[in-house]
C-alpha cells in the first residue's frame, strides 16, 4: 500500500513539473516582444528509484535555463557598435551636406556671379550700376564663405554636444550595469535561476545600449558578473564598481576631450556613436574647413593681386579688394573672416577696373573676371570652382560611403539578430507545441493519479469487507 501512496506522490510531483513547464511556456509567450529576453527552458530529470522494486519516483524539476549563445551575443554587440558609428557619421555629415545647398545655389554660383559682375564691369567700366553689382556680388560671395564656414563650425559644435550627452549616457549605463552586477552577486551561490536570468536579460539590454555608444570590451566572469572596458582596455565597470567618464572643453574651439579615470581617451574611442561623432568632429569637418579656408585665401590673394595693380576711375592706384576681419593663421580662419575691404565696400568708385591710368580702361576688370579660370589652388592645378566641386564631391562621397557602410552593417546586425533569435528568441509556434505538450502530460499524470486513487479505493473497499 505504501508503494501506491508513493505513486500518488509521484503523480503529484509530475503534475507539478508539467505545471512548471506550462508556467515557463507562459513566461516565454509573455515576453515574446521583450527586448533582450532569452527564451527559458524548464529542465526536467527522472527521479531515481528508492529501492529495488521501484521504477522511479517520477520527475524532478532540476532548474530552468536561458538559451543564450555568448559568441553570437558578442558578435551582435560588435556589429551594433560598427553600425552606430557609420550611422552617426552619415547622419552628421548629411546635415552638413544639406547646408551646402544644391549646385547652382551655393558658393559655386556665388563665384560665377562674382566673376560675371567683373565681366559686366569690363563691358562698361564707368557704369555706376556695374560697380554696385560687383560690390553686391562680392558681398554675397563673402557671406556665402562665412555662412559655409559657420555651418562647418556649427556641425562640429553639434557633434561635440552630442558626444557630451553620449558620455553622460555611458556613465548612466555603466552605473546600471554595475548595479545589476551587484544584484547578481547578492543572490549568492544558491541563487534562484529565474531571478538570475532576469537580471542577465536586463543587463544585456544595458550592454546593448552601451555598445551603440562606444566600442567596449566585455568580459564575463566565472561568478556571472561582467567587467566592461572602454578605449583600448581601460576599466569602465569592474564588478559593482564604475569609473566615471568625463568631458571637458579645451582648446580655442572649446571642443571636449573625453577622460576616463583621469586619462585622455578621446583618441582611443573609435567605435559606436561617439567614435563616429569623433571622426566627424576631428577628421572630416576640419578637413572640409581647411579646404574652404584655402579657397577663401586663394580667392582673396588672386583678386587682391590683380586689383592692387589696377586703377580706379579717379586715377588712384588699386588696393586690396578683399580683407579679413581677423587675420588667418596660415589659411585657417580665412573663410570665416572673409569680407570686402571697407574702403572699396564704402565706395564703388574705388574698384580698380583699369589696368592703366585711363578712366574707361577695363584691363583690370577683365583680368579679375579671368581669375575664374586661373588655377590658383592645389599647386596650380585647380580653379576655385574646381576646388569647390572637389569639396562637394568629398562631402558627398563621405556621406555616401558612411550610408553605404551603415546599410551593410545594418544587414549584418539583422543577420546576427536572426542568428541570436534562432537560439534565444521566442517562437510562438514552438511555445504552442510546448503548451500542448505540457497540457497533455498534465492530463496524463492526472489520469494516472486517478487510476492510483481508484486502485486505493478498491483496496480500501476490500479491506472493509
Amino acid at each position, binding site marked *: 500500500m505504501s508503494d501506491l501512496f508513493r505513486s500518488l506522490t509521484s503523480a503529484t510531483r509530475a503534475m507539478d513539473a508539467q505545471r512548471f513547464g506550462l508556467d515557463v511556456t507562459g513566461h516565454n509567450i509573455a515576453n515574446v516582444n521583450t527586448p533582450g529576453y532569452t527564451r527559458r527552458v524548464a529542465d526536467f530529470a527522472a527521479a531515481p528509484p528508492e529501492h529495488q522494486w521501484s521504477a522511479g519516483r517520477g520527475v524532478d524539476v532540476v532548474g530552468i535555463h536561458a538559451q543564450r549563445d555568448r559568441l553570437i551575443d558578442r558578435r551582435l554587440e560588435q556589429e551594433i557598435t560598427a553600425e552606430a558609428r557609420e550611422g552617426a557619421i552619415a547622419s552628421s555629415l548629411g546635415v552638413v551636406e544639406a547646408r551646402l545647398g544644391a*549646385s547652382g545655389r551655393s558658393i559655386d554660383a556665388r563665384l560665377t556671379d562674382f566673376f*560675371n559682375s567683373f565681366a559686366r564691369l569690363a563691358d562698361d567700366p564707368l557704369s555706376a550700376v556695374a560697380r554696385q553689382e560687383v560690390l553686391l556680388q562680392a558681398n554675397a560671395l563673402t557671406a556665402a564663405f562665412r555662412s559655409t564656414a559657420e555651418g562647418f563650425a556649427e556641425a562640429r559644435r553639434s557633434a561635440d554636444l552630442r558626444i557630451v550627452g553620449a558620455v553622460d549616457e555611458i556613465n548612466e549605463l555603466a552605473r546600471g550595469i554595475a548595479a545589476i552586477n551587484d544584484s547578481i552577486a547578492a543572490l549568492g551561490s544558491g541563487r534562484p535561476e529565474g531571478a538570475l536570468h532576469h537580471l542577465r536579460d536586463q543587463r544585456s539590454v544595458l550592454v546593448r545600449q552601451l555598445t551603440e555608444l562606444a566600442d567596449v570590451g566585455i568580459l564575463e566572469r566565472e561568478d556571472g558578473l561582467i567587467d566592461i572596458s572602454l578605449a583600448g582596455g581601460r576599466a569602465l565597470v569592474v564588478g559593482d564598481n564604475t569609473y566615471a567618464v568625463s568631458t571637458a572643453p579645451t582648446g580655442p574651439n572649446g571642443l571636449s576631450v573625453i577622460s576616463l579615470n583621469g586619462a585622455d581617451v578621446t583618441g582611443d574611442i573609435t567605435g559606436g556613436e561617439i567614435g563616429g561623432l569623433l571622426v566627424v568632429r576631428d577628421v572630416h569637418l576640419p578637413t572640409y574647413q581647411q579646404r574652404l579656408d584655402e579657397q577663401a585665401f586663394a580667392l582673396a590673394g588672386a583678386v587682391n593681386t590683380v586689383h592692387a595693380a589696377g586703377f580706379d576711375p579717379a586715377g588712384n592706384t588699386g588696393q586690396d579688394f578683399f580683407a579679413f576681419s581677423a587675420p588667418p593663421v596660415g589659411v585657417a580662419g580665412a573663410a570665416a573672416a572673409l569680407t570686402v575691404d571697407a574702403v572699396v565696400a564704402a565706395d564703388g568708385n574705388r574698384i580698380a577696373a583699369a589696368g592703366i591710368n585711363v578712366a574707361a580702361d577695363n584691363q583690370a576688370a577683365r583680368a579679375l573676371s579671368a581669375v575664374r579660370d586661373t588655377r590658383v589652388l592645389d599647386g596650380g592645378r585647380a580653379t576655385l570652382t574646381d576646388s569647390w*566641386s572637389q569639396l562637394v564631391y568629398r562631402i558627398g562621397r563621405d556621406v555616401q560611403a558612411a550610408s553605404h557602410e551603415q546599410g551593410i552593417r545594418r544587414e549584418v546586425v539583422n543577420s546576427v539578430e536572426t542568428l541570436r533569435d534562432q537560439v534565444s528568441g521566442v517562437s510562438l509556434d514552438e511555445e504552442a507545441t510546448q503548451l500542448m505538450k505540457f497540457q497533455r502530460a498534465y492530463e496524463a499524470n492526472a489520469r494516472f493519479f486517478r487510476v492510483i486513487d481508484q486502485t486505493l479505493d478498491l483496496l480500501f473497499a476490500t479491506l472493509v469487507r
Partner: protein
Amino acid sequence: MRVTFSSMYREAMSGLEGAIERRLDLQRQVSTGKRVERASDDPSAMARVIVERGQQAALDQYTQTADSAAARLNVADTALSDAVKHISAAQVALVSARGSQKTAAEREAAALNLEALRDALLADVNTVHRGTYVFGGASGTVQPYTKNGVGVVSAYQAATTEVSVDIERGIEVAVSFNAESFIKGTDADDLFTVLNQAITAARAGDQATLSTANLALDRALDRATGMQSRIGAGQRTVEDDLARLSAAMRGSEARVAALEDANLAEAVSGMQQADQAYQAALAAVGATSRLSLMDYLK
C-alpha cells in the same frame, strides 16, 4: 533552424522599409525630374555638374558681352561708313574747287561743302554709344575732337589705348577705337587740319595745297577703310563666337541633363515596380501574421 516571430517581423520590416525607401527615391525623381539632387546621390556626377554650371554661367556672360560688343561694333561700323562717305565726298568737293577756270562763287561753294563735310566727319568720330565715345579709346567720356567757334578742330584729346572685351576664353575683340589712328595716322597733320587747309585753299584758289589735301584725303580714306575692315572682322568674330557659345551652351546643358536628370520613363516604371514590391511585402506580413499554431489551440 528555429524561426521566431521577431525574426519574421524584422525581415518583414526590413523588406517594407527597403521597398518604401526605393519608392520614395523614385517618387522624388519623378516629381523633381532630377536623379542627382544631393552630392551623396552621385558625388562624381555632382562635382561635374558644378563645373558644368560654372561653365554655363561663364558662357552666358560671354554671350552677353558678345551681344554688347556686337551692338557697339555696329555703331562703330555705321559711324565709320559715314566717315568714309564723308571723306569721299570731301575728295569730290576738292576736285570741284580745283582748276584755274573755277569762279570765286564755285570755289566758295566748294569751301562751304568742305566745311559741312568736316563737321559731319567730326560728328562721326565723336559718336557716342551708351555714354562713351566709340572712337575715344579708353578715355570713355573724353570727347576725341572738339571744334572752337571759328571752326578749328582740336588735336586728338582722348586715349590712344583701345578697349577690348573678352567674348570667350582667350578671344577678345576691340570695342572702343582710337580715332587718331585713321584721322591722322602717321601723317604730319590730322584730317581736320587738312580739311581746314583745303577750305582756305579753295577760297584762295591755291591749287598746290588742294592737290596736297587730295593726297592726304586719299591716305585718310585708306586708313578709314582699313579700320572699317578691322571692325568688320571684329563683327564676324563676334558672330562666329555667338554661334560657338550657343553650341557650347547646348552641349553643356546636354551634359548636365545626362548627369543629373532622371530618366522619367525608367523612374515611373521603377515606381510601379516598387509599389508592387511594397504591396507584396505588406501582403507577406499580413499572411505571416495570420498563420500561427496558437490558432489551433482549443
